[in-house]
Each structure stands twice: as structure tokens, then as C-alpha cells.
């Protein structure tokens, strides 16, 4: 088990390095022209180009520059020319808890709604309630997130002024209530889009489990239905859901871009979008690397949790 964890962590580090290389290649090597000129800003001068060349090691070739970029990101000192040479790593790290909070709040809503609805649908398969829930879930899946965000803003901020039209209130400034107030609408939007997938997936897995022989055995033994459902059905049905949840949650950390930009939340997505308008892509690099770290860490955790939940996998290692 310990060895397995170690191998998985090493694997994650190697993957992260590869991801950073691809990111560097896309952002720095792929666009034509001298990257130093691009990084020197909109009005490059001889000196500023020289300074950039030295700071980012562009004079030593692409690989040296890559090492420079990586070192600056990891040591947390990345002065971005487009941001007035200020260090952007603290700004990126400050964006992480915003995105994290949004993702957690959204995940609580969509998991509670999706898994409950899916389990209910599976046990009452074919009923009117089940069919209605599945149609609603499918409609939820079909919504483009950006448009749903705009609709939510129209309905619950403009038409009925329940929530602010955007902006972020940190838990330190407005307390837990202030934070919830500013976060609820974007979180609900994300949850609606995701809940449908989980409803349908839970329903399928639970239905498959209900047909398993060991469930029938447990029932035949005379176990109370509640125990059969909780211990024998849901526990195994949760495995694929946990796997998908890990991936989706990590994806949200790097990809809640629509919600964040529409609701004006200063999260990672907003950070990356801010970098889009600049000539140097340092913000995209740093933001992308942080997001990729989340995805890889989440994948590793998912693997471990899967092992804990699934005795078959545990004995294989």
C-alpha cells in the first residue's frame, strides 16, 4: 500500500513535468517571432528586450527558458512584464481559495441532489417520478453554462433581487453569510449543469447493482432493506461516482472559467482570462500549471480512494 502511494506520487510528478513542458511549448515556442520581444510588452525597447532575455533565459535556448519558467513558478517568484513586473504567483495562489470555495459549494449541492435523485430513480425505475427526474436531468446537462449563468443573474439578481449581480466577498470581510451570499448563485449554476450527469450515472450504477446476486442474497438472508441498500448497494455503486467526482472536481478548479468570469469572481479562471489579453502568456502559464497540479493530485487521490472502497483492487496491490 505504501509502495503504491509512492509510485502514484512519482507518476504524478512526472506527468506534471510533461504537462508543464507542453504548456510552455504552446505558450512560448509555438507563437511565431522572438518570445523575448513579446514578453517585453507592447512597446519593447532594446534594454527591455535585453532584460527580459536575461530574466527568462531566452538567450540560452528554449530548454533553458523552460527551466527558468519552471524555477520561477516553483520558487514563487515570477515577475510578469505585462503586470508591471510584479510577482504573479501570489496573485494566482490568492485566486485558488476562491475557486476552491466555489467548487466545494457547487459539489455539495450537485452531489446531494444528483445522488439522491439517482438513487430514488433507480429504486422506483419506470415510475412517473423517475421519468420526470431523468428528463429534468437531461435538460440540465444540455444547458450551456454561460447562458445558464446569464439566466440565473437575470432571474435571481435582476428580476428578484435576492443575490448580488456579481463580485466576491471573502469570508474574512463579510463573514460566512457574506461569502455564501456572493457564492451561492455561481455555485448553484455549476451544480445545475453537473447534477444531471450524476443523477443519470447514479441511477444506472444503482440499477445495475440492484440486479447483482449478492444483493439478492443479502435480501434473502432477511437483512433489513435499509441495510441492504446502504451497505451492499450504495457502497459499491459509489465507486464509479467517486472516480467521476474526482475528475470533475479537479476540472472545475481549472475550468470554472465561464461562471467565474460572468459572476466576476477573482478565481483561477478569472486569473487565466486576464492573462489572455496580455502579450506575454506568463499568467496563462502559471494559472495553467496550478490547475494541472490540481487535476493530477485529484487523479492520484481518486486512485487511492478507489482502492480503499474496492477490496478487489486492494488485494491486487
Amino acid at each position: 500500500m505504501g509502495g503504491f502511494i509512492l509510485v502514484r506520487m512519482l507518476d504524478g510528478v512526472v506527468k506534471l513535468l510533461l504537462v508543464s513542458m507542453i504548456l510552455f511549448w504552446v505558450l512560448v515556442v509555438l507563437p511565431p517571432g522572438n518570445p523575448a520581444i513579446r514578453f517585453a510588452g507592447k512597446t519593447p525597447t532594446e534594454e527591455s528586450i535585453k532584460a527580459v532575455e536575461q530574466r527568462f533565459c531566452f538567450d540560452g535556448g528554449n530548454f533553458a527558458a523552460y527551466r527558468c519558467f519552471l524555477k520561477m513558478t516553483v520558487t514563487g517568484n515570477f515577475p510578469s512584464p505585462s503586470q508591471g513586473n510584479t510577482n504573479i504567483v501570489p496573485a494566482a495562489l490568492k485566486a485558488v481559495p476562491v475557486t476552491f470555495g466555489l467548487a466545494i459549494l457547487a459539489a455539495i449541492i450537485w452531489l446531494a441532489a444528483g445522488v439522491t435523485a439517482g438513487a430514488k430513480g433507480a429504486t422506483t425505475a419506470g415510475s412517473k417520478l423517475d421519468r420526470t427526474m431523468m428528463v429534468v436531468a437531461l435538460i440540465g446537462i444540455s444547458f450551456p453554462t454561460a447562458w445558464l449563468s446569464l439566466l440565473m443573474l437575470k432571474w435571481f439578481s435582476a428580476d428578484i433581487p435576492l443575490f448580488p449581480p456579481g463580485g466576491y466577498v471573502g469570508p474574512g470581510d463579510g463573514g460566512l453569510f457574506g461569502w455564501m451570499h456572493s457564492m451561492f448563485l455561481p455555485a448553484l449554476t455549476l451544480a445545475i449543469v453537473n447534477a444531471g450527469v450524476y443523477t443519470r450515472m447514479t441511477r444506472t450504477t444503482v440499477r445495475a447493482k440492484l440486479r447483482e446476486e449478492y444483493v439478492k442474497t443479502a435480501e434473502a438472508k432477511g437483512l433489513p432493506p435499509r441495510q441492504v441498500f446502504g451497505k451492499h448497494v450504495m457502497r459499491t455503486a459509489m465507486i464509479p461516482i467517486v472516480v467521476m467526482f474526482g475528475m470533475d472536481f479537479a476540472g472545475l478548479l481549472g475550468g470554472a472559467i465561464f461562471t467565474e468570469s460572468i459572476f466576476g469572481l477573482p478565481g483561477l479562471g478569472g486569473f487565466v482570462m486576464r492573462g489572455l489579453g496580455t502579450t506575454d502568456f506568463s499568467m496563462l502559464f502559471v494559472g495553467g500549471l496550478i490547475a494541472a497540479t490540481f487535476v493530477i493530485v485529484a487523479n492520484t487521490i481518486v486512485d487511492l480512494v478507489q482502492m480503499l472502497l474496492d477490496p478487489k483492487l486492494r488485494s491486487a496491490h
Partner: protein
Amino acid sequence: MTAFSQPNSTVSSGVSLPTNLQGGAGALVGGARAENVTSQSESPTQLAVRRFRTNKIAMIALVGFIVICCASFATPWLEQHWAGRTAVEQNLDGTMQLNGKKTEVVDLRGMPAVGPGLRKEYTFGADGLGRDVFIRAMAGGSVSLRVGIGATVLCIVLGTLVGILGGYYRGRADKILTYVVDVMIAFPFMLFMIALSAAIAMSGQIGPIKSTSILVPMIMLGALSSFGFSRVIRANAIELGNKEYVEAARALGGNDKRIMFLHVLPHLVPTIITYSGILLAAMILGEAGLSFLGVGVQPPTPSWGNLINDGRAFYSTAWWVAAGGGIPVMLTVLCANLVGEGLEEAFDPKGSR
């Protein structure tokens, strides 16, 4: 993807039933359609087609999707004979004749002043530049659908190629391919797309393709999604590679290329068809997202994502501008998902229920 139960749709799900019996069940349920089924044995494909045709919801969704496609690709006709203006034509003085009265299309603050209504001009209202939202939605559809369908085809071709090579050959090549796919999946998808399109936009031109061409989002979406799809194909190809008939073909001296394309690929077709609906839905959502962020289809070319972005400034007052992009995306994705689900049930009635 999952399936939801539809009454009557898969009564003929017992695979072991003799075909004529199944035909009878289908006829009972599906009405007149299945009546002329002969008791001759059917190929699995014919069986699937018949199952799909008796699935009412899937058929309605298919018709809906075809209607959306036809309407979108009839944009030039609609521009000429319905709205009287093109999708990019602005109404500069901001007025029009409505019921014989001069009416503002865009007010002095630049707000769209004409909402949806039952009239030829501005059926879905006007946007901030006095353009016709209905015509823009249709014209946007022809772009979004082209991007979506093209990306789906590309994703399927690339994903199948990678998956079949890895799954059939196994060994070192497979290990390398699997690892590459693993690394690419570790990327936050949307973020990578944004980074890539930013780099491409800066390049201006990649080979023969201009960076503002709709081919750019199409290829990006298709190529980047193919990694995930190749996993599905690989898993299936491994299973098929172990089948007796593949071994028999090998024993008879068939070379690898021949076996792969003649014996493995045809059996992957149901999987590919089943996934195509879901993939198309994902691609259309992807295009809408990218264009909304300004890194997909480039304005002034209308696309559904661009329309949602156009409406962003007046989401509370002129909601119809964003809805002009949002509603078609939603309907198309809904139809594509339902068709995909119908296909899944048609090809694998047992597994999906």
C-alpha cells in the same frame, strides 16, 4: 452515458428471442412501422435500426435535430425571404417600420429595443447593433453545427485510430500511447484550449489555415477530445483482439492491417455510432463555451457561442439576444443526447437498461 427508461421503447430487448417474435413485439409497440418485418434473420445492424425506429423519444429527437440542421443551412433563403436582412447587417439608424409605425430597434443608450414577436423582421428581436437575432441564430447554427459535426468526425477518426493501434498491438507502442493519453487527460481541458487558441491567434496563420477560420476551433475541439475517446476504443479493441475469430484470422495468415480493418474495426462501429451523439453534444457545448470566451469562432462570423456573448451586456433587459444562442444550443444538445441514448439502447438493449 446513462439511459433513462422509456415505456414501450425496448420491449424487444430480449436478445435470445427469435427474430420473428421480436418483430411481433416491435409491431405491438411501435405501431405500423414494424409490421412489414419478415421472419427472415436480420443482421445486428438491421435489428438496431428497427429498435431505434420504435423508440419514440429518440425518433422525435432525431427529427428535431434534422429540423435544426435544415433551418440553419437554409439561412441564405431565410435572409432573403423572411427577415430581409443578412446576419451581419446592422441597422444603423436603429429604426424600422412596425405595423406601419416607425419603431426604435436600438434605443439611444445602445440597448436593443425590439423583443421577440410574431413578425417577419426581428422574429427573435434585435441585438445591440440592430441585427436580427433570429437570422443570427440560424446563421450561427450553420457555423456551430459545422464546427460541432466536423469536430465529432475528427475526434472519432483520431480516437479510433489511436485506440485501435494501441488496443490491437498492445506492447510498447500501446504503453506509450496510453501514457500520452494519460498526460493529455491530466490537462484542464478548457484551459488548454484557451492557451492553444491564444497561441494560434497570435500566429495569424498555421500552414494553409488562417487563425480566424472556423477550422481552428473545429480541429482543436476534435483533436483534444480524441484522447478521451481513444480510451473507449482501446478497451473495446483489446476485448475484440482476444476473440476467437481474430485468432482464427491470424492463424489463417491474415496480416495485422487486414485483421484490424476487416475484423476488429467493423465490430467497433456500434460503439462509435453510440458515442457519436454524446460526442456531438459535447462538441456543440464546447464551441459555445469557447466562442463565448472569445477564443472560438471569431466575430463577425456569427455562432451560437458568439450570440450568447453578444447578449452578455444586456442579460437582464434584452434577454433574447443571449437566448438566441442559448436556446438553439440547448435544443441541439438535448436532441443529440437523446439520439445518442436511443442508439445506445438500440445497439445494446441489455446493457443500457
